[in-house]
Structures are given as structure tokens and as C-alpha cells.
């Protein structure tokens, strides 16, 4: 029974990691850009939600609803004004610029909010749980997982069913020919990063309400997100969810054996997948 409980907790935790990873996966799929500041942007969104809840007394879910368009705008501007300039054959500029952004965000947040650990309070929801058979499943972890499902389903609908999604795929295939179709790649990229920031806001809502966070929490979220993407296989959003789940289960199983091994077990699972299936479990992208 305890074993099943551990697995269920791990699967639900995987939902959170899939939320961390979905934005990273989306942006990489469209413009082959890996944003090293992705984790710090999640933390930034968490602080934004914290600010809205504490200053305006808003419910965290409502706060996230307000934060989402703000984060979309920030992502759009970041891509259009800064990151678009770094795209090209050389992988060095985007990496170093996003690394710089990561450092700037971390230290900016440190100045603004101090190094203290924070948490967004959601009242009684925090400890609410529902009984499934003999298992007690926390309501927030369950909602996190369902949100991850909803986010990935919506992103897939967007990419495979809409004109914007066609433009995403066409631009990713061949940027010059996309221009001949009237697609402006710079704007398509900006919209994609904006959307990734909306997903980041949803991830931040659950990060902030489920656990403590501080200005330096970003890099480890980036690493979890990255591991989920690689385990799942580049370019597949459902693969990313599977990657998140594998990572989550590995961590809870590791923690069940020895609490100090939680993070380590996740990393080891990632390295194991890297050795057995270097291109991930469900690879789609050719490169």
C-alpha cells in the first residue's frame, strides 16, 4: 500500500514537472532555443502571484489569471526585443544571453524580495485531500496533474488545429519559406515565448502554493524541466508529460528509501534514460 502511495505521489509530482517543462518544450520545438532563465521566470511569476495575493488580497487562482497576461507580455517583449537578436546558426549567443538573464533575474528578485523562503497561501485547500479507495490523494497535487493534462492537451490542439499552430510548425520547418507565406518569424517567435510564459504562470501557481520558494529556486526548476523534456524526447509534448512523471516517480521512490536521495534519484533516472535511449522515450524532432 505504501508503495502504491509512493507511486501515485510521484505521478502527481510529475504533473508539476511537466508544467515546468511544457513551456521549455514549446519554445525549443519552434525556434530551437533553450532558455536558461526558464526556471527563474517560473520563480518570477511565483513572486508576481505572491505580490498580487498579498498586496491586493486576491485569491491565488485569480492572481494567476491576472499574472498570465502580464507574463505573456513580458515573454513577448523579451523574445521580440532581446532573444530574436541571438537566434542563428551559433548556439553560443542565446545560451549566454539567457544565462545572463537568469543571473539578472535571481539577483533582481533577491534585491526586491530578500532571500527569505516564501509561500502563497491557499487556505484550507492546502491540506485538503480526497480518498480514492484506501489512498488519500491531496487535492492540490491532483489539481496540478489535471492542469498539466489540460495545458498539454490545449497546446497540442493549438499546434495541430489552428492557423497559428500551422505557422509555428511552418516556421520551425523552414524560416525563409515561411516568410514567403506572409509569416513574420520574429512575431511568431514572440507569440510562442508569450504562450510559454502563460504556461510558466500556471506552473508558478502550483510551485508557489505547494512548496516554499526563494529567489534562487529557479535553476533547479530549470534542471527538472530540462530532464523531463529530454526523458520524454525532443518535440513531443505528451513525451514531456511522460518525462515529468518518470522524474517525479523516481524522486518519490528515492525519497521513500532515504529522504536525502530524492533529488539524486531523479537525476540518476535521467542519466539512465540518457544512456538507454539518448533521444528520449518518444522522440519526434529530427535534430
Amino acid at each position: 500500500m505504501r508503495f502504491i502511495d509512493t507511486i501515485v505521489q510521484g505521478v502527481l509530482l510529475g504533473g508539476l514537472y511537466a508544467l515546468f517543462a511544457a513551456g521549455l518544450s514549446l519554445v525549443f520545438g519552434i525556434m530551437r532555443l533553450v532558455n536558461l532563465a526558464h526556471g527563474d521566470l517560473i520563480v518570477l511569476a511565483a513572486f508576481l502571484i505572491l505580490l498580487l495575493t498579498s498586496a491586493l488580497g486576491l485569491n491565488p487562482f485569480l492572481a494567476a489569471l491576472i499574472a498570465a497576461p502580464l507574463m505573456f507580455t513580458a515573454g513577448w517583449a523579451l523574445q521580440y526585443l532581446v532573444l530574436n537578436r541571438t537566434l542563428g546558426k551559433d548556439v553560443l549567443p542565446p545560451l549566454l544571453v539567457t544565462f545572463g538573464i537568469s543571473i539578472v533575474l535571481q539577483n533582481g528578485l533577491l534585491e526586491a524580495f530578500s532571500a527569505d523562503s516564501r509561500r502563497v497561501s491557499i487556505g484550507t485547500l492546502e491540506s485538503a485531500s480526497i480518498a480514492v479507495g484506501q489512498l488519500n490523494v491531496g487535492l492540490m497535487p491532483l489539481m496540478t496533474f489535471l492542469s498539466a493534462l489540460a495545458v498539454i492537451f490545449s497546446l497540442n490542439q493549438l499546434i495541430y488545429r489552428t492557423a497559428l499552430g500551422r505557422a509555428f510548425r511552418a516556421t520551425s520547418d523552414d524560416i525563409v519559406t515561411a516568410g514567403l507565406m506572409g509569416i513574420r518569424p520574429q512575431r511568431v517567435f514572440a507569440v510562442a515565448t508569450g504562450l510559454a510564459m502563460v504556461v510558466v504562470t500556471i506552473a508558478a501557481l502550483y510551485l508557489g502554493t505547494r512548496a516554499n520558494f526563494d529567489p534562487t529556486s529557479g535553476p533547479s526548476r530549470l534542471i527538472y524541466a530540462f530532464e523531463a523534456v529530454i526523458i520524454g524526447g525532443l518535440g513531443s509534448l505528451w513525451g514531456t508529460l511522460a518525462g515529468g512523471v518518470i522524474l517525479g516517480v523516481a524522486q518519490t521512490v528515492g525519497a521513500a528509501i532515504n529522504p536525502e536521495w530524492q533529488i539524486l534519484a531523479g537525476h540518476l533516472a535521467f542519466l539512465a534514460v540518457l544512456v538507454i535511449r539518448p533521444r528520449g522515450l518518444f522522440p519526434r524532432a529530427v535534430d
Partner: protein
Amino acid sequence: MSIALPSFKVETRSGTSSLAALTTVAGLALALAAPLIVSRGVVQDLFFILTMLVLAQNWNLLAGYAGLISVGQQVFVGFGAYAMFGAVTLAGVDPIAAILIAGVLSALLAIPTAFFTFRLQGPYFAIGTWVVAEVVRLLLAQWKALGGGTGTSLPRDATRDMAGVDIVRDLFGMKVAAANDALAYWIALLLALATIGFIYRLLKSKQGLGLAAVRDNEQAARAVGVDARRMKALVYVTTAFVTGLAGALIYLQKARISPDAAFSVTDWTAYVIFIVVIGGIGTIEGPIIGVILFFLLQKLFADFGSWYLLVLGLIGILVMLFSPRGLWGLFSDRTGIQLFPVRRKLIGGPLEHMPKGGPNG
């Protein structure tokens, strides 16, 4: 029509480099004598500059020349430091010998590390190196004999009885602490000079040419017989060796270690990346300029805490966006000066007289 065969000569030296050689000799003499001239505080500052320079030159070789962008080089700093601590406190090895052991062990660690990370390309390689660094940090935090997660200190008598300390004390009449600093400084100086010398010679050699070819166009380089993977792996292991040496040396001086400090992304990777980027990536001069600037900025603004890092990050971003070849690149483009000329020049051939950009090329 008959064509007279022109005589070609390939040169990498330039006029300014001879002048630079003279100044270098004078500078070297001064650098060697520094512990006898300046205060202990200055010697410690110089030690810091030299060790950061070694880390920067290594990261530059890795990212700027071999195209291996790592954000996980802290793994070799931390591992080297822990290897040295382990050798000194658990096996009773002399610290100087322990530094060498640390370098060798770091190079050995690079082999399994490469086994994992070389499966990842470009940006994914970068984060992959970071994951490996995290794994090693978490594993070493389990090593209770070296203090686990909270860390430990070097036994005092280990550094006092370090080989060479007595000689330095007797020769220059220094106290133990000052002799320790002086010795660490000389090792750092030797390491920095050897690193620069090694990289310079590597880049001028046939292997260096192959490396440049791989960086410019990996497929084309492969087509003409350059084994890109082997070249990259060799550079990776070599930089691991030197970075491990530097890590051990830095922590010999600090004499106190903890996993979080020894594997700090900020201290051993972020700073190093900013030094290289701001100074000028892909040049030997760049990291030298970068580390001096970095030191001055730190002296001036260290009291401002995170503002300092924030500004450093902003400068790094701006340089990457608007002057991707860094300060040295700007200077070198304007003046044509190269202190370490590695670009090959064809001398005496007809190419020199060809106008640039003819109809076919």
C-alpha cells in the same frame, strides 16, 4: 600563359608580438617577485585573479574553441577540491602532491561525465553538464568523512607542514601564514602561465587548426579527416584536469570546504562565463582583460551584494548582443593588435594583392 610559382610562407607571428615578448619578460620577473614586494592582502588578491584566470582560460578553450558550452565546470572545481581534501585528511598525502592527484582524478571523472553529456548537442550539452555537476555535488554531500552536507576544514598542521613551506620561510624570513600564501601564489602563477602557454601552443599546432575547423564547420572538418569527436573529448578531459588542479589549489588556500560552495554555479561558472564573454570569447587575451575588469568591479562594488551580480549579468548580456567578440575583440578590430597571434597569415603569395570580394567569392 605560364604562371610563376610564388613562394608561400605561413606565419602566425606578428610584429607587435615581439615587442610584447619583451614586456612579458619584465612583467614575469615582477610577478615572480610579488610576494617579496607587496603585502599579504595583495598576494591573496593576485592569487584570486590568477586562479580565476586559469578557470576562464579553460572555459574559453572549451566554449570558444571547441564549441563545448558547459555550465557545469564547477563539477571539476568541486571534485578537485574534494579529492585534495580527501587525499590530505584521509590519506595524509602532502597538499602539493594532493593537488596533482586532484587534477588526475578530475580528468578521470571527465571520462564518465563525457559518456553522458556527449550524447547531448549544443544547448542540451550545457544543461547536461549542469545535471552531472549536481549529481556529483549530491553524492559528495553524502560523504560523511568529509563533513557531508555541512563540509569540513583542512587540519591546520597539514598546511603548515606542506612541502616547500619551510624553504620559503627560511629563504625569505616569512611567517607560516605568509609563506603559505606565497607558495599558493607561485603555484597559481605557474598554473596560469602553463595554461596560457599550453593553449597558445595548442592553437598554433596542427591540432589547433583542426579545432578551428571543427568550430567553423564540423561536417566539413570531418570530411577532410579531422576527428571532431576525439578532438572535443581530448579538450574536455584536458580542461577537466586543469580545472581540477585549480579547484584543489583554490580550496587549499580557503582550507574550508562545503558541497554548496565548492560546486557553486555562481562562483565557478557564472563569474567565469562573464569574465570570458566580457573580455572576448575565442581569444587568449579576452579572459586576461576580463579577469582584470572583473576583479576591479568586484573590489569597487562587492559591498552592493546582489546589485553587483545583477549589473555584471547586464553587462554580459549587452556585450553578447552588441559586441559578441568582447572588449578585446573591439580593441583588436580597431588596432589590429594581437598579443597571441594564432590566426594564420599567408605571406608572399599573390593572394595578398587580390582585391577582396571578387566576382566569384
